[in-house]
């Protein structure tokens, strides 16, 4: 923040003078600047505060009451008397103003060389609730809130170890926000920490706004559609990633934490895979990859096959497909685009509508219009099935941003499929793959462990293995300690009936 006042000692002054100066010079006549004068035999004390920023309970019980009870008013005695930590002595008007903005109280005893500031901020924060966007069926349901204190509290509660390091940054010129870099000292890679620290230090913006915007400022490639840092609202996912050797960033006023570095496959992992038994977890994880692939390819393949390559459609399917398409007046490309945009409309409307209307509109939009659109002969019902499946599949990605990315890259692929058939599809796939290879997340390869190839990392990426075999952290983060825990001793193999 720019300095607006001369850096010089303001005190001593009259009590009323301090108030008027603060009001006129710092707050530009704010109506909410309150004050109270406490008179005692020999001298008086003024306390100044912003009405809506301080905790009234504390103000009356701990500040005013103590001041009134103190027999002899002096900075030293007040400091001792008030049972609140963080009482500071300030000399400059500007610093006092800043403290008041952070929810402090200024106490000034006439004649003293310094004023006291006592932090008693009133924090309006949502209590932790159930996660909404990344809901889990199984496992911890708590989610982050908008207050960094609560979030840090949750993280510390989940990881009560002295190895948890928290570094503080204040970012933002007009609206400074607290940003914390959180990592496990003995696991996280030095280079990653250094890189992240320097990126946060070099960040010069007016307002960070939210953790998902801060990721966009510090990401490796801001042109890519794929998110490079994972934004999650789940503390358990956040803490699990820290234990994997990743770094976490918490931003004040944001209900989500940022995890870096990440790789492409980690956007399809959920902590729920770990909570369920390994075979279920492995199956579900593979399912998600299949779903992503299907979501990207199904509609384009339909468009390509019906526009150019009729010969690849099996005979049995050709009849029903031809029948359902016989009334459709549009070419397959247009037909598919109309439906895809329609589905996107339903999704967007569903997200924006108030919850009470949302369900009704979902039914009207989804079922009624869907039915009518087929009956009116605008699209074939096979395409409705395909589009619905691919939309559904895109929502299986546990990261909302990745799901959206997948839904959006489908559009250009559909257009290319409509223009050049399978060649267009394969071309766009090849382009995406090359793009992913070139991508980096915090200078770590994005497509690990596929490239750089690390077969041992398969249990941390594509599938999941029983913990008996899967006792290592992901290689791609280059953690300091690769082993999570020693392998349990092998059980003795016994004969059948012994």
């Amino acid at each position, binding site marked *: 923040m720019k300095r607006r006042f001369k850096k010089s000692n303001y005190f001593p002054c009259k009590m009323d003078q301090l108030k008027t100066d603060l009001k006129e010079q710092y707050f530009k006549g704010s109506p909410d600047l309150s004050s109270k004068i406490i008179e005692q035999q020999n001298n008086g004390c003024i306390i100044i505060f912003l009405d809506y920023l301080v905790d009234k309970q504390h103000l009356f019980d701990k500040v005013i009451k103590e001041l009134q009870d103190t027999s002899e008013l002096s900075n030293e005695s007040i400091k001792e008397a008030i049972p609140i930590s963080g009482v500071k002595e300030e000399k400059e008007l500007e610093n006092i103003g800043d403290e008041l903005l952070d929810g402090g109280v200024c106490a000034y005893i006439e004649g003293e060389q310094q004023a006291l500031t006592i932090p008693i901020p009133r924090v309006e924060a949502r209590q932790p609730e159930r996660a909404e966007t990344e809901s889990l069926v199984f496992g911890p349901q708590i989610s982050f809130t908008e207050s960094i204190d609560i979030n840090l509290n949750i993280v510390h509660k989940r990881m009560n170890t002295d190895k948890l390091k928290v570094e503080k940054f204040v970012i933002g010129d007009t609206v400074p926000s607290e940003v914390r870099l959180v990592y496990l000292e003995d696991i996280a890679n030095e280079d990653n920490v250094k890189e992240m620290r320097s990126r946060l230090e070099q960040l010069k913006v007016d307002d960070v706004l939210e953790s998902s915007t801060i990721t966009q400022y510090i990401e490796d490639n801001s042109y890519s559609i794929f998110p490079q840092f994972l934004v999650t609202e789940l503390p358990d996912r956040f803490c699990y990633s820290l234990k994997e050797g990743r770094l976490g960033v918490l931003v004040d006023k944001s209900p989500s934490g940022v995890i870096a570095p990440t790789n492409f496959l980690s956007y399809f992992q959920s902590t729920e895979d770990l909570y369920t038994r390994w075979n279920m977890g492995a199956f579900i994880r593979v399912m998600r990859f299949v779903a992503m692939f299907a979501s990207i390819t199904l509609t384009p393949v339909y468009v390509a096959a019906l526009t150019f390559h009729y010969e690849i459609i099996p005979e049995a399917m050709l009849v029903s497909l031809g029948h359902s398409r016989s009334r459709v007046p549009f070419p397959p490309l247009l037909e598919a685009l109309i439906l895809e945009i329609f589905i996107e409309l339903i999704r967007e409307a569903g997200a924006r509508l108030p919850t009470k209307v949302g369900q009704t509109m979902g039914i009207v939009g989804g079922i009624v219009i869907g039915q009518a659109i087929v009956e009116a002969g605008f699209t074939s019902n096979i395409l409705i099935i395909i589009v619905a499946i691919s939309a559904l599949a895109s929502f299986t990605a546990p990261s909302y941003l990745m799901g959206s990315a997948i839904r959006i890259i489908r559009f250009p692929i559909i257009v290319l499929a409509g223009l050049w058939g*399978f*060649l267009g599809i*394969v071309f766009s796939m090849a*382009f995406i*793959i*090359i793009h992913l*290879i070139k991508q980096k997340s915090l200078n770590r390869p994005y497509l690990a462990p596929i490239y750089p*190839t690390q077969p041992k990392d398969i249990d941390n990426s594509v599938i999941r293995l029983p913990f008996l075999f899967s006792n290592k952290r992901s290689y791609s983060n280059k953690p300091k300690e690769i082993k999570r825990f020693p392998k349990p001793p092998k059980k003795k193999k016994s004969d059948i009936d012994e």
Partner: protein
Amino acid sequence: MQSQLQIPIDKKIKAVYLFVVLHALQMGVGVVGLPRVVYEEAKQDSWVSVLIAGIALHIVIACIVFILNSYKNTDIHGILAQIFGQKISKVLSMVFIFYFYLMFISILLNYIEFVQVFIFPKLSTGFIASLLIFLVIYAVYGGVRAAVGSSIVFFFTTIWMVLLLIEPIFLMRAEYFLPVLDNSPQDIFSGALKTSYSILGFELIWVLYPFIQDKKNVAKYSHFAMLFTIILVMYVTVVAIGYFSPKHLEMKVWPLFTMFKIITLPIFERFDVISVALWLMVVIPNLILLGWMISYSCKRVTGLKQKHCLHVFMLIALIVATFVDKREYVNILTDYVGQAGIFFGLTLPFLLLPFAIYKRVKGNKS
């Protein structure tokens, strides 16, 4: 030109990747037509030809690795410079680059022809070429790591296609292989020479060598790569001989795609259209690796910026692809590249071998 190269550690790659990278560059457009090409010479004994080519390949790669190891941290251009001096070596390097460039163009044109024959007869050559070249430029901009990475990822995304030949395997007939070793050794030998176009690409190691981190494993993985290529080529050839009748095979220009044609899956009636489109993923690593190699070598030899070299080469390739769209030209070019490969790929290492041995002997004495 520096003779010893200092490659920064973050640009270096592990030797394991050589296995996939060399293999990926060998597999490409050649193997599609290979069974017919060899069959025309060696008939039912084509597999012997492939075997001979394979053995020759292993000897050559052993020779190349020996030379590279004796010159330590340098590539073919550095080696040529050390042997022939700056001026002559520049000319030789240019010729070498030109050979790779021809290979690039021939792969490009061959793939475009597949597309035009199997999928879109009317799609213009220049347009398909621009699609491929766009991908190549985009990938080569990522440097050596992106070039190597793309070959690895595309290898994983296409290697499953070897399983597609299971259906033809069950339709193979033993009598098509009989009588064994009935053809003259000349025929079998010329069949082996004809295999050359399909197994070229291992020359990449000449340029990639300085980028490898653990040099002691180079020999191991490059031999594995050669072995794997030969096994795949052998597999395709044997299945093609067993599946097609003799007359039939000579008529099929691209036996591999014809074999894909009979595959029927519950959701796809015919697979050849898809496989030709998917072949883009087999071909694109070739083009990317060659594109990287040409532009990097050009930078090494001429001192120009790699970007500019790449742009110029790709622009010329695009122009050539737009105007050369007749099958005959493509055939002639492919034959030329195959023949040039016999010199640059198979003979050149033996010509350089004496110098390497001399250097080693001298090094040991001092």
